[in-house]
């Protein structure tokens, strides 16, 4: 009989980080190939397809998220150094940024306040619980930053991480169409909007449009991570005073 042998292998694999890490990379590799096959159609965003593949696989094999995350955490961890790495494109675009510092500062400030204010306001109007409102508030900032803020203002950090990813995907999928619709053609404006609203996933999409849009999106993502960390806790207190929950 082969059965006990296979079972032993499965027991080993399901408790070791190797499996979670490998399936993450394989799923992303497949998803990325599919994305290239569809001529980079935003609807085939590799994050959507790889997350869908992994969830189906985990549900089908009865593997829990925490078992999967034993391996997934190694990829997740790299979000930290990747945030630090944003200093490099920021530095390379500095001369352009210096010319545009006033418009960029105004747009970032407004963008960050609108992102957090509108998600809290809309969730409240639609009857969402306070926990949901607070988990949604930092959704446009990059994952490690958003999770930290969510914890501070009374949201659920792990739910925030999910909402951050969905927000990024939404922005990446809708972005270019929306900019066409409102007739914004300047790559710097498109990049700033993408980075403020849809962080890293939007930035990955922006780099496919042009390197300038990508650099400005990365810049906006880095600066808005900073601005969100400073502004959102303060904004939450302010909204608390204005609109009773």
């Amino acid at each position, binding site marked *: 009989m082969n059965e006990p042998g296979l079972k032993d292998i499965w027991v080993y694999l399901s408790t070791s980080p190797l499996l979670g890490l490998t399936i*993450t990379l394989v799923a*992303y590799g497949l998803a990325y190939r599919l994305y290239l096959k569809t001529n980079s159609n935003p609807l085939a*965003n*590799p*994050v959507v397809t790889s*997350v869908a593949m992994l*969830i189906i696989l*985990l549900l089908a094999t009865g593997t829990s998220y*925490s078992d999967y995350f034993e391996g997934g955490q190694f990829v*997740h961890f790299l979000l*930290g*150094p*990747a*945030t630090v*790495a944003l*200093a*490099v*494109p*920021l*530095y390379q675009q500095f001369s352009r940024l210096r010319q545009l510092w006033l*418009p960029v500062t*105004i*747009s970032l400030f*407004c*963008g960050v306040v*609108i992102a957090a204010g*509108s*998600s809290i306001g*809309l*969730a409240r109007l*639609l009857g*969402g619980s306070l926990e949901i409102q607070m988990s*949604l508030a930092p*959704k*446009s900032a990059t*994952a*490690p930053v958003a999770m*930290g803020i969510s914890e501070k203002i009374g949201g659920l950090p792990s739910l925030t991480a*999910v*909402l*951050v*990813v969905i927000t990024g995907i*939404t922005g990446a999928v*809708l972005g270019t169409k*929306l900019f066409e619709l409102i007739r914004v053609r*300047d790559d*710097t*404006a498109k990049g*700033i*909007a*993408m980075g*403020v*609203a*849809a962080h*890293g*996933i939007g*930035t*990955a999409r922006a780099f496919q449009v042009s390197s300038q849009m990508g650099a400005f999106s990365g810049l906006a993502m880095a600066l808005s991570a900073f601005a969100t*960390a*400073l502004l959102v806790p303060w904004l939450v207190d302010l909204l608390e005073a204005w609109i009773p929950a």
Partner: protein
Amino acid sequence: MQFLNGITLLLVYQLVGEITVRLLGVPIPGPVLGMVMLFVTLMIRGKAPESVDQASTALLSHLSLLFVPAGVGMMAHFGRIADEWVPITLALLLSTIITMVATALIMQVTTRWFAKPVSEKEGGDE
């Protein structure tokens, strides 16, 4: 070796960022402070070393991969999301659209106001 040096440096900045944030009790996430400190260092040095450039390009070119494990976390929150799916999906979708449209328009308008004292390019709007 270059890549290894680069990634080590990024981790050192993140570590210093995390420690500083905790020591000073400032409300900024550690990696963000690390980014600011690296940016200041690059400004002072006047150029990005090859190693840091390589490591950051490698990390940032597959940035979307890094969000996948967090996205899979959706399965741990199915119940929660199902309970409040109307406020969650509508608020998320509308807020993302509003933010993107408003930011793009504000950036476009303010760029025209401030960044063009000398008309470097004919926009045709003056």
